[in-house]
């Protein structure tokens, strides 16, 4: 059953993907960033992937394109997961927001934005969430100095 749905998905979506493979029981689709919205739209409406699990990024410094944005989806109908990856360049670290489709994506996109500086086109609420206003830089990028502190309260010594 589980394998059946993944086979159907990969058959239907492989032509739009750069690669499609099954790793540890999860279907992994690598996409061009432009293909994200149509692919996710089909996943949601045709294949029942109704739960948005996560969006995060990987900083592959010094490779180019530098960032890889990773999404995970789950189907509560078929009980399987799917992973989508897309590479974006540092100069143009922009992908489409999935907030119009999955409400919960908004919060996770905010976190990904503050930690990696990925811009989610269409998400107008990318305020810092775990960090604070005035924080300069993106701390989970590999080139953020690991001992750089930005204190809000002046140190007493």
């Amino acid at each position, binding site marked *: 059953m589980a394998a059946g749905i993944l086979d159907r998905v990969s058959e239907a979506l492989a032509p739009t993907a750069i690669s499609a493979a099954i790793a540890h029981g999860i279907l992994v689709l690598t996409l061009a960033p432009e293909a994200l919205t149509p692919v996710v739209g089909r996943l949601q409406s045709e294949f029942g992937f109704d739960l948005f699990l996560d969006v995060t990024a990987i900083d592959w410094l010094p490779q180019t394109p530098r960032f890889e944005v990773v999404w995970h989806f789950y189907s509560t109908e078929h009980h399987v997961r799917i992973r989508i990856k897309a590479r974006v360049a540092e100069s143009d670290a922009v992908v489409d927001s999935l907030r119009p489709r999955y409400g919960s994506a908004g919060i996770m996109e905010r976190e990904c934005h503050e930690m990696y500086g990925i811009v989610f086109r269409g998400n107008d609420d990318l305020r810092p969430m775990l960090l604070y206003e005035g924080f300069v830089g993106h701390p989970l990028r590999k080139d953020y100095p690991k*001992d750089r502190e930005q204190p809000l309260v002046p*140190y*007493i010594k």
Partner: protein
Amino acid sequence: MSTPTNASLATIPIHAVGEKSSAFEYLTTKKDELLGWARKFSIFPYPFVTACCAMEFMAVSSSPYDTDRFGAALPRFSPRQADLLMVVGTISHKQATVLKTVYDQMCEPKWVMAFGACATSGGFYQNYAAVAGVDRIVPVDIYIPGCPPRPEMVIDGIMQLQDLIARSRHPIVNKDF
């Protein structure tokens, strides 16, 4: 602060001028001893609990270890009523503003305990998010190492704080008395 020039104005010399009055010295010492004794057995803690050390804080405050023996059992969740700020757990830079406000709201006399490695030095968090030791923000009187500290260490810390309180000066009228 003006020094009284006319000795007849004060029957008890508030400020020892010239050669020190032994009666004044005696009184001051006894008053500090009395207040120190009273204060060391009524350390009402304000638990500023943020992370995993909280588990150990709960263990040490519950009956098997019974911090009530030291008068330090009743947590006050209002900084106005607390004497001891227990910083239990990791403090992030975002939270540091809250900690500073809580500290500023506490009435004198007040003491601060850094509970656990994170509050003491940042522990293993040396990164963009964590404050590497709360003594960068508020003055700390007693440090308890450990990740998390054993209850015995906490109790030892409380007892050392009691000694510190008993030994310190307790000015009540002005900075000299």
